[in-house]
């Protein structure tokens, strides 16, 4: 399985996700520039965290126009795995690949800490190695992570099991229905605010994120049935 990590101007967790996949999980990974128009040859694509275009205007709003995004959309529609964390999640919603959007945190502050999460859906490409309802803890680091969608969309997300991670115990940013991560309807596009790539090595004090990447690698580009 060959994986692309997209580098936008202002991405800064690109190295983190690259290393998590490559040195920790032994995957075949490349950095791919935002200017590249094609993702031919890649089986999966990662949109990293950071501040693409400085988060000027809105987080993710400008990155969605990068040349590479057409190829990302194409892969998403083809059912190949597309993953975005933090700024990557914001870009996926701005690009319309995931419903809803991310607002400024209720506290109006950037917040960096490790929070408890519930794995709500372990039937996805990205979560098959977790238990259903398993409690894990992952770091968050964002100022714009408050998930918003209208009631109908929220109901639909729940009905289709598209809510994959929920904040457990405390809601750090004001997300509706404690949503921390969702997939698209087909289940091949996952966006989440927490950073699994920061939790893959014991030396950094947390390995709860590792199974996300291992799930992806184990499932390859197997399509999850709708």
């Amino acid at each position, binding site marked *: 399985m060959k994986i692309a990590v997209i580098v936008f*101007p*202002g991405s*800064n*967790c690109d*190295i*983190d996700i690259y*290393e*998590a996949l490559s040195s920790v999980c032994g995957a075949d990974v490349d950095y791919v520039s935002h200017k590249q128009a094609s993702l031919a040859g890649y089986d999966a694509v990662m949109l990293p*965290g*950071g*501040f693409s*275009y*400085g*988060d*000027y205007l809105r987080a993710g709003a400008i990155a969605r126009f990068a040349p590479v995004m057409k190829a990302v959309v194409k892969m998403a529609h083809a059912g190949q795995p597309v993953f975005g964390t933090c700024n990557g999640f914001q870009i996926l919603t701005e690009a319309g690949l995931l419903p809803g959007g991310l607002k400024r945190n209720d506290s109006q*502050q*950037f*917040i*960096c*800490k490790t929070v408890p999460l519930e794995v709500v859906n372990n039937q996805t490409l990205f979560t098959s190695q977790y238990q259903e309802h398993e409690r894990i803890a992952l*770091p968050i*680091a964002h*100022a714009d992570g408050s998930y918003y969608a209208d009631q109908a969309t929220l109901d639909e997300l729940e009905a289709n099991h598209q809510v994959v991670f929920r904040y457990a115990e405390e809601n750090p940013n004001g997300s509706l229905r404690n949503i921390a991560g969702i997939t698209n309807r087909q289940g091949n596009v996952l966006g989440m605010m927490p*950073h699994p*790539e*920061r939790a*893959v*090595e014991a*030396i*950094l*004090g947390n390995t709860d994120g590792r199974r996300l990447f291992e799930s992806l690698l184990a499932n390859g580009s197997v399509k999850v049935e709708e």
Partner: protein
Amino acid sequence: MKQAMTPEEIKEKKPYLDWSLSEDEYNYISEKLLGRLPNYTETGLFSAMWSEHCSYKKSKPVLRLFPNKNARVLQGPGEGAGVVDIDDGQAVVFKAESHNHPTTVEPYQGAATGIGGILRDIFSMGARPVASLDSLHFGELDNNTTRMKVTGTVRGIGDYGNCMGIPTVAGETTFDPCYQGNVLCNAMSVGLMDQKDIQKGKAAGIGNAVMYVGAKTGRDGIHGATFASADFSDENATQRSAVQVGDPFMEKLLLEACLEVITKHPDWLVGIQDMGAAGIVSSSAEMASEGKSGMELDLDLVPQRETGMSAYEIMLSESQERMLLCVNKGHEEDVKKIFDDYDLDAVTIGRITAGHQYVLHHDGQVVCDIPVASLTDDVLEEASEEKKPARITKAEGQPAWRPQITNAEEALRRLLQQSTVADKQCLYQQYDSQVRTCTVVGPGSDAGVIRVRGTKKGLAMTTDGNGRFVYLSPKVGGKIALVEAACNIVAAGAEPLAITDCLNYGDPNDPEIFWELHQSVQGMADACRALDTPVISGNVSLYNENNGHAIHPTPMVGMVGLIKDIDRVVPSFAQHAGDHVYLIGKTADDFAGSELQKMVQGDISGALNDVDLDRIHDNLRHLLSEMQAGHVASAHDLSEGGLGVALSETLFKTDLGMDLDLRDLTAAQLFSETPGRLVVTVPEEQVAVFEKSLGDNAKHIGTVTNTHWLEAHLADAEVNQNVTELQRLWEEALPCQLKSKD
């Protein structure tokens, strides 16, 4: 700016006095250096370059006291940042910088651009910044002005550093009335590099290009450099509008582009320097001086954001996110291509010339033609008057203050809620401390620790400074600053390597303040020698005053240590019930300047006892080797609030407790702040070898329990406190004090 005056008008009307150039200096420049009257632009350039901020004309004699070499130092003071060998062909690069005046005026942008500036210093050396630290000192949290300054400053540091993707892994935050009108915001950054990539701020080679890269020039911070050297007063308030705005997104691109040129195309580059204070003039003149070259620049080529800028404004603008490169002739287009790729300006604005003249063209005219050295090397050093303050002589003759503690438990509970002691999580959680996934220990311990990817090594880092101690006894206070930093580094299991510093003082023209500067630097220098931690970089910030009230003299020490085996990092929290608790270092009656004194008396007074540097160094060495051998489970150094606070902190965030026999200490001594002490916990199996190595420098004081109670038996009191409750007081204090009350 006013309409340019003729040289004769300048001589007559002396506008340079407002720009902080003295009449003697002006005369020396006209008569000795130029042999003619300087024109308007030249006068402006001299004013900026001869300011304390750029020239260190007052502080230089004092800075010479610092040792700055040892076997590991590859680059000492003088470049963008210092460089230290960490083996395997790698090096660590670090420096600290103050942004006190800009932060006082406009906390958010001041702090943000402070981070931006220090990061440029690191990558201009060819290193990738891997961690930042911040040392903040505010007025008391009893008024909304301080609250807004804290909020703005922390947000500024966070927004810039987070966007850049550089983790902020440690720092310090203190509160004292002396900083009410003049906040201190010192930022430190640490970078990693291969030794082969080390760059210099140097311009040489006749015909080589001087290239300007990065953001466009506007009228930001004009006179910032000279402004930083002039005392604040509230009447000045309206003049302070040339706020420099940070653009971290631009800086992220600049960082990547510069590192690409440096690491991939070393043959293109002669030198590189960031544009900091006094913008283009200081970077270009310093580079030319370093290369012993002449330089000619055409200011019309400088990318500009505003129209109608004068030569003076272009040269002195402090617009952020700009760098100056000296590029081998023929490679200008190559360099430009790389910067184009990042959507950044890269423009050749001049050339290296034969001879030693610094020549500027603007609007078809030569606006400056002076020897390079006259701006950089010929600055008149100033001998300053010194006088020992009467308050110190008086304090030395008086008996020391002895606290009467009738309720030790209450004293401990109150101390944990003092803003300087209380938990800082509500501040540092606004910083991304984990990006780059190398942070092994983030904020909330003694030192921040990052791993060096691809090796077994780690780096520990800390910033420490305590203005109260330095104010009471400058020389001893200077020593304590080093001792505290070293204890924090060793507590993580790291070997102290070297330091950077920010020297924050009041107006040096006041002989008492200069005496404080001199004495405290002497104390720091003595401690640097004793601990073998040379000074490899630093920064001086003088004139920290508001309406004539100086801050406490506050030298900040930024120390970096090396961890040979990252798996042997020692946490600052107790690990297992049954481990033995030791106190390293002897406790004396050290209450002058303590948190306890401030809390009880409302103010500080007295004289400090001297510290035995060799003894402390010896203790730290032995402790470190025990830690490296894996014999120590946790270590935490003692600072504000002494042993009582340190013991509590060792138990916070665990579910453990301690049962301690402290019968040779009084209740008051539980809060004494004798420097150079640590609390360590040692597993039962290691006790014998640990005790043998530390001898009577480590005193067994009890054991770790699994009750989550802190129980201590003192000579004249009992402490029996639920740790959950103590932790709650400690955690809730700062968020509560930060809430607006009026």
